[in-house]
């Protein structure tokens, strides 16, 4: 009986390790620019870009006590506002790349499928890109002008799970003058309705999943 319990415990532990490894990001080195992850459409949970020539990277790290650098999608269909947030690090400090988009009334996760193949111009007014230290939300920071290209948005095998892949590049003003260039950006994330999406109802509250 003891032996069986030991085997069950060992198998459970192995299962947890496999699960955590499977959810963590995979960095496939870009064959042309090895400092960045390769552009993929597999849900590798990784992203990267050059920020003023330095490398910003985001690789989702799942551990026993939580996870780091998860992507987030926040949507307020009533306000026609969609926020896509990628967090990562650069020179051992955390930074966030975010995009505020209008015209995509996302109330359930599958509504994001409308972004498939869409190249969205970031004009800095209606749609904008953001670059912020830490995990802060894009409020009061400079609005980036450029583009985000959702090259592939597709369903994964299980319901409530999407792959969001694409590229981005934008330039935003610095508060003290000058500008910041975010270039050669690419992302390939798995978006889970439960883990990575906050979809608010028209009334302002969170939608029930």
């Amino acid at each position: 009986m003891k032996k069986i319990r030991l085997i069950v415990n060992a198998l459970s532990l192995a299962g947890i390790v496999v699960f955590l490894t499977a959810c963590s990001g995979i960095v496939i080195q870009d064959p042309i620019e090895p400092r960045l992850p390769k552009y993929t459409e597999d849900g590798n949970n990784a992203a990267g870009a050059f920020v003023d020539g330095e490398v910003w990277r985001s690789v989702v790290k799942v551990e026993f006590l939580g996870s780091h650098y998860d992507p987030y999608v926040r949507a307020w269909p009533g306000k026609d506002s969609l926020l896509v947030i990628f967090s990562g690090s650069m020179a051992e400090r955390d930074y966030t790349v975010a995009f505020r988009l209008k015209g995509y009334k996302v109330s359930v996760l599958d509504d994001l499928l409308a972004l498939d193949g869409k190249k969205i111009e970031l004009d800095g007014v209606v749609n904008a890109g953001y670059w912020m230290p830490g995990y802060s939300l894009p409020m009061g920071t400079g609005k980036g002008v450029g583009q985000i290209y959702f090259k592939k948005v597709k369903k994964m095998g299980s319901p409530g799970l999407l792959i969001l892949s694409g590229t981005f590049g934008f330039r935003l003003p610095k508060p003290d003058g000058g500008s910041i260039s975010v270039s050669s950006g690419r992302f390939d994330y798995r978006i889970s309705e439960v883990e990575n999406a906050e979809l608010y109802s028209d009334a302002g509250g969170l939608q029930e999943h």
Partner: protein
Amino acid sequence: MNQNKQKMNNLLKRILIVALSNSWIAFPLGKIHAQVSLMAGGNCSNIRDHIPIQGKSAILGYNLGASFQYFPFKGSQNLSLIHELNFVKKGYQQDLDKNYFYRFNYLTFSILGDYAIAKPVSLQGGLEFGGITTTNIKYWRKTYNEFDIGLVAGANVKIAKRLSLYGRLTYGLLPMLDYYDIDEMGNFNKEIHDVKNITYTIGLKFNISNEKNKTHR
């Protein structure tokens, strides 16, 4: 792109199998004069690209293997065929913020023609079929093509009874990479099929069995 890659890999696998199987057909055609040799050498390898790949430069590698040379044409003792099975380290490096090394270990099978232009010197040319066995790059199968075919040209100089020196150039014909040309804003300009091997090799070949010499004695 992945489906095309899969089709290409299957086709190249078939070519490799056909080349390997056909190459040994010469054996049963009567009594054949043959030489078996072990070979080892160093190589300098790099890539050719159009993209371009910034800061690329050559790396040094080595090759180890065996060669089987036979003289199938009774009328011409100057002309022979060589089959070689080699383990070859190829690749290149990229010097950016640091050195990024790309090492590809190929198992290659070559079919070469050898023509003796003077007593110790012969010219060689033919094809090399290769497949990547290992590399230092994680998840390489998601990026690089497994198979390569190269044109081979070189020379062989006999420097002792059983020892000869060989030098050759292998010019990869197939692209190692199927990817996209993505600009700084994230536009996909075009699909690229690029990055081809180029390898310069120099080495020694040690003859371990010389049926030709025995029969001529």
